[in-house]
C-alpha cells in the first residue's frame, strides 16, 4: 500500500476544470427552451439516419425493383405516397437523410479545419511585432476577403461542373467555399486570446509558435468554433440542397436535394405533391434545429447575447 500513487495525475486539474465547465454549460443550455427543441429534433434526425437500414429496406431505392404504382397518394404501405418511378417517398426520405447529413457534416468539418487554421495562424502571427508576421496576417486576410466576395453559388456550380458529379466533389466544393466567415471570427477571437498573460508566460518560458497555437490559442477559441460549426452545418445542408437541385449532386446517392430535383424535373404539380413537400419540410426542420442549437450555444458562451 503506497500513498504516493494517490497523488494527482498530470492533467487531472485541467480535466476536472473542463468537466465542471461542461456541467455549468449544460445547466445554462438546458434553460433555453428553443435550444432544447432544436436539440431534440437533431437527435431524432440523427437516430433516423443511423437506423435507416432498420426502418426501410434499401432495395426500395432501386427503380428497377420498385413495385408500387407510380405517383400514388399516401397508403398504408407507402405513407407518403410514391414518386414517378413507383418508389416509396418515405423510404427515399429516410435514406436521403443519411446523405444530406453526411454531406452537411463532412463539408462543415472541411470548412472548420480551413477556417480555424487560417484564423489562428493569422491571429497569432498578426500580433507579432515584425514585418513577416504582419505580412502573413495581411496575405491570409486578403485571401479570406477575396473568398468572401466571390459569390458562393456560381463558384460552386463552376467547380462542381468542371470536377464532375460525385459525393466527394460536392463535399469539397461546399467546404472550400464556406470557410471565410469562420476564419474571420476565429481570427478576431485569436487576437483577443493573444493578449492574455498566460501566452506571455508561455512565450517567456520559450514556447514555440506551434506550441502557443495548439496548446493555448486553439483550446481558447474551441467553444466559439463549436458554436460556429453547428451554425455552419445548417448552411452546408442548404448548400447541398441547392447544388443537388441544380443537378450537380451524385444521382446514385439520393439526398433530399436530389429528391427535390427529381420531383421538379418530373413536373411540379402533376404527381404526388408529398414527394416535393416531404423533403422540403425535412430540410427546414434540420436547418432550423441546427440554427437553434447553434444560437443557444452562442448565447450561453456570450452572455451579452443572452437577453435576445
Amino acid at each position, binding site marked *: 500500500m503506497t500513498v504516493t500513487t494517490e497523488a494527482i495525475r498530470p492533467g487531472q486539474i485541467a480535466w476536472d476544470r473542463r468537466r465542471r465547465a461542461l456541467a455549468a454549460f449544460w445547466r445554462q443550455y438546458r434553460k433555453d427552451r428553443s435550444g432544447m427543441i432544436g436539440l431534440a429534433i437533431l437527435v431524432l434526425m440523427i437516430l433516423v439516419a443511423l437506423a435507416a437500414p432498420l426502418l426501410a429496406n434499401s432495395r426500395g431505392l432501386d427503380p428497377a425493383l420498385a413495385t408500387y404504382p407510380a405517383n400514388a397518394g399516401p397508403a398504408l404501405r407507402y405513407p407518403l405516397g410514391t414518386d414517378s418511378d413507383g418508389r416509396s417517398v418515405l423510404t427515399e426520405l429516410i435514406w436521403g437523410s443519411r446523405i444530406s447529413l453526411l454531406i452537411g457534416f463532412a463539408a462543415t468539418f472541411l470548412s472548420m479545419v480551413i477556417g480555424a487554421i487560417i484564423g489562428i495562424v493569422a491571429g497569432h502571427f498578426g500580433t507579432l511585432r515584425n514585418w513577416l508576421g504582419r505580412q502573413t496576417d495581411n496575405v491570409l486576410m486578403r485571401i479570406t*476577403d477575396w473568398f*468572401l*466576395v466571390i459569390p458562393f453559388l456560381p463558384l460552386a456550380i463552376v467547380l462542381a461542373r*468542371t470536377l464532375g458529379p460525385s459525393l466527394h466533389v460536392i463535399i469539397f466544393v461546399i467546404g472550400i467555399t464556406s470557410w471565410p466567415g469562420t476564419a474571420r471570427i476565429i481570427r478576431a477571437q485569436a487576437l483577443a486570446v493573444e493578449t492574455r498573460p498566460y501566452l506571455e508566460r508561455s512565450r517567456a518560458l520559450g514556447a514555440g509558435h506551434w506550441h502557443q497555437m495548439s496548446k493555448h490559442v486553439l483550446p481558447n477559441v474551441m467553444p466559439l468554433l463549436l458554436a460556429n460549426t453547428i451554425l455552419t452545418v445548417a448552411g452546408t445542408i442548404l448548400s447541398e440542397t441547392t447544388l443537388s*437541385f441544380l*443537378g450537380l449532386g451524385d444521382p446514385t446517392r439520393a439526398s433530399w436535394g436530389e429528391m*427535390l430535383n427529381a420531383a421538379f424535373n418530373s413536373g411540379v404539380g402533376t404527381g404526388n405533391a408529398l414527394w*416535393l413537400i416531404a423533403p422540403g419540410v425535412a*430540410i427546414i426542420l434540420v*436547418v432550423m434545429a441546427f440554427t437553434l442549437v447553434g444560437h443557444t450555444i452562442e448565447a450561453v458562451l456570450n452572455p451579452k447575447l443572452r437577453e435576445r
Partner: protein
Amino acid sequence: MLDGALAAAQELRGEEAGAAKVGTGLARSLGVKVFSALVTLFFVIVFNFFLFRVLPADPARNLVRGSTLTASQMAVINKTFGVGLPLPRQFWNYLVQTFQGHLGISFEFHIPVASVIGAALWPTILLVGSSTVLSTIIGVWIGIRSGWDRGSAFDRTSTAICNTLYAMPDFWLGMVLLIVFASKWAIFPAGGMHSFGGGGSGFASVGDLLWHLTLPAIVLTLVYLAEYSLVMRSSLIDELGSDYLLTARAKGLRDTMVRRRHAVPNALLPSITLIMLNLGFVISGAITTETVFSWPGLGLASYSALNYPDYPVLEGAFLLFSAAVIAANLIADLLLTVFDPRVRQA
C-alpha cells in the same frame, strides 16, 4: 451566408477606421476604396482564367464535353481559347479580350456571350430590384416592431416565422407556391415573363408582366425579408440599453418619439450596410428561383448554360456575378463613409 455578410460588414467598419487614419480626408479614403475594388475585380478576372482554362486537364475537350460540335465550331473554340499557345500567351490574349468586352461566343445560341447576358440582365434587375425594395421595407418594419417590444406576441410570432423562412430553400418555397397558385387554383401563371403572344400592348402588357412577376418576387421577398428583419431586430436590441435613450426618455419624449428619432436611426446603419452587401449575392442567389419560374434572367441563363454545357456563357455570368458583389461592397462602403461621421473620423 448571413454570418459571412455580417463578418464582412463588421470588417468594413473596422477597416474604415484604419484607412481613415492613413488618409487626409474623405476624397483620399474614397479613392483608396475604389482602387482596392478594382484590384479585387482584377483578381476575379485572373481567377476566372484559371478556373475555366487551367484547372481542367484538357480545357478545349472539357469545354465541349457532352455537346455535339461541328469542325468549324471546334476551330472557333480553339482560336478563342488559343489552344496550343504557351500559357502566358493564352493569359495575355484572355486579358485583352476580356477588357475589350469579348467574352466569347455562346455554344448554344451562336451569338456573343455579351448579348446573351445583356438580354438576360434586365429581367434579373426587375425581379431582384422589386423584391429587394419590398423585403427591405417590410423586413425593417417587422424588425423594428419586434425588437422594440421584445418578447411580445408580435415578436414571438414574427421571429418564429422568420426563422422558418430563413431555413427554407427558396426554390422549394417557389415550387410549393407553384403547386398551390398555378396548378391547383390557376390564379398565377406557371412561369415565364410574358403570356404567349406578348399579352397585349400598352398597359395590358405591363399588367401581364406584373402578373408573371408576382410569384417569383414573393419568393425572393419572403426569403430575404426573414434575414433583414432578424438583423434589424438584433441591431435595435443592441441599442436598447444605450444612455442616449435614457436621456431621451428623461427629457419626457413619448415612447414612439424615442424609437423613431433616436433608436431607429442608429440601429438602421448596420442593417442597411448588410442589405447593400447582400445585394450583390441576391443577384446570383436568384439562380434557383429563376429556374423554378422559368424567369428569363441571368439565373436561368446560367442554369441552362450549366446543363448544355455552355462554358463561355457560364464564364461570363460568373464574372458578372462576382462584379456585382464587388460593386455592392464598394457602394456599401462608400455610403457608410459618407453618411456615418463616426466611421469617417475614427
